[in-house]
């Protein structure tokens, strides 16, 4: 059985390489939307925060988790909405 640490590190390595491959060809015109889109994705922390905020115990960890849910939701909701708003403005020349 492979220890979890090794497994997780393996995933980390693969996703970093994948990220480089995916993004290095993005044209300059999309850099700002890419950045705010990536920002929204970094709100993924919310997934980790959810289970910490839902323990039902009135302890510090629960409050920290709830705070993390709120902060990460700002990122997720705000990030996707503003990216969409920007991208809706990008138009190709007609004709």
């Amino acid at each position, binding site marked *: 059985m492979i220890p979890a640490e090794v497994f*997780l590190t393996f*995933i*980390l390595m693969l*996703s970093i*390489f994948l*990220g*480089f491959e995916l*993004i290095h*060809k993005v*044209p*300059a015109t*999309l*850099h*700002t*939307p*890419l*950045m*705010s*889109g*990536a*920002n*929204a*994705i*970094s*709100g*993924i*922390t919310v*997934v*980790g*925060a*959810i*289970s*910490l*905020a*839902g*323990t039902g115990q009135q*302890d510090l*960890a629960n*409050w920290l988790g709830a*705070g*993390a*849910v*709120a902060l*990460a*939701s*700002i*990122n*997720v*909701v*705000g*990030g996707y*909405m503003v990216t*969409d708003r*920007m*991208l809706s*403005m*990008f*138009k*190709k*020349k007609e004709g």
Partner: protein
Amino acid sequence: MDILIQFAYVVSGGLFIFGLKQLGSPATARRGNMVSAIAMLVAIVAALLDQGIVDFQWIVIGFVVGGAIGAGAARMVQMTSMPEMVALFNGFGGMASLLVGWASLAGATETFTLITIVLAILIGGLTFTGSLIAYGKLSETIGSGAVMFRGQQVVNSLIVLGILGSAVMFCIQPENPQWLYMVVGLSLVFGVMAVIPIGGADMPVVISLLNSYSGLAACAAGFAVNNNILIVAGSLVGASGIILTQIMCKAMNRSLSNVLFSGFGSGVQDTTEVEGEIKPIVVEDAFYILEAASSVAIIPGYGMAVAQAQHVVKELCELMEENGAEVNFGIHPVAGRMPGHMNVLLAEADVPYDQLLEMDDINPRMENVDVCIVIGANDVVNPAARENEGSPIYGMPVINVDQARTVFVLKRSMASGFAGIENPLFYKDNTRMLFGDAKESIGGLIREFS
């Protein structure tokens, strides 16, 4: 049930990757963002199905509060203020990861987990305060200049040593909260110290780097709570931020460490000598030249954002096209305060994206351009970067506007740009200075045309 949740994360990871891929082309970018949002939704729903959750009250409150703030900000923000908004969001992401790291401390005993908790707190904390400072500089609530003081390196080194020391002690004695507080406090201080010596014009690099950190913090938090999807999504963001950072550094011909550790221009004495004289031009005369031009290139810079001139620029562009001229835009990679800043502003003003040329595409065409209009750009069009080895920006790739037949420079006054670098462009024979607020000057040209 647990296996279902894990598979949902796999689906979510796949969708994130697919969404990012689509985000790489203007035609599919909007759909890509949508796919990525769906990926997020899948991951959140999966997380909510976790049977360890007994109380949804605080989760819902967190969602509602955060979501409302995020949605409000996303709707209200002006396109010229995008850099500070992205900076602020980076900071929230970092803080969220710090809190997750801290909260997952309860019950963590393995050294590997403790190390990842420290990393989540450290990266998250410095991302948070660093982003707040970046926000302050970008929105000009604090001065945007580089803050340097004697002994700064020493202070920073001490902070780093302090962080390392308390991080090690924390991993050895996780039950002693004092080390935890030290790590939290010092990483917050370090974020401030890391960003204050960086000046306004270097912000594209800083903001990209903080973007990367916010992803890496999520990644570290993923290790701390043992969750794959955090690691996958976090490292995708981390990689994207690093690539943008690299592109920005390359566009300024500087290494990352040079941007981070030396206030711009310090050390290099500007030996640029300027010859010739400044030749101002008035709107009427500028109009006659423009009316006769058949090829026009517009080079926007941060000044266009400050003057909110993107809409009048578009209007002028249309009038010139009706007049039979070919109009293109040349965008330098570091024009503005974040990567792609100019492109977004011009997109807001309905300029089609295929009319926006990158530096390498516009430079070969420059010799055939009749009139080049520089709006609020300075360093990115400075020929000294090409010609004068004594210039602090020597070697930086620039847009060769001086090779156009005539150059109009729209500028408020003769005050130097960032760090006071002389710009010989203003003194060239084919350059005419159109002084005044960019928006008003262009408005004047529009009135002449119509």
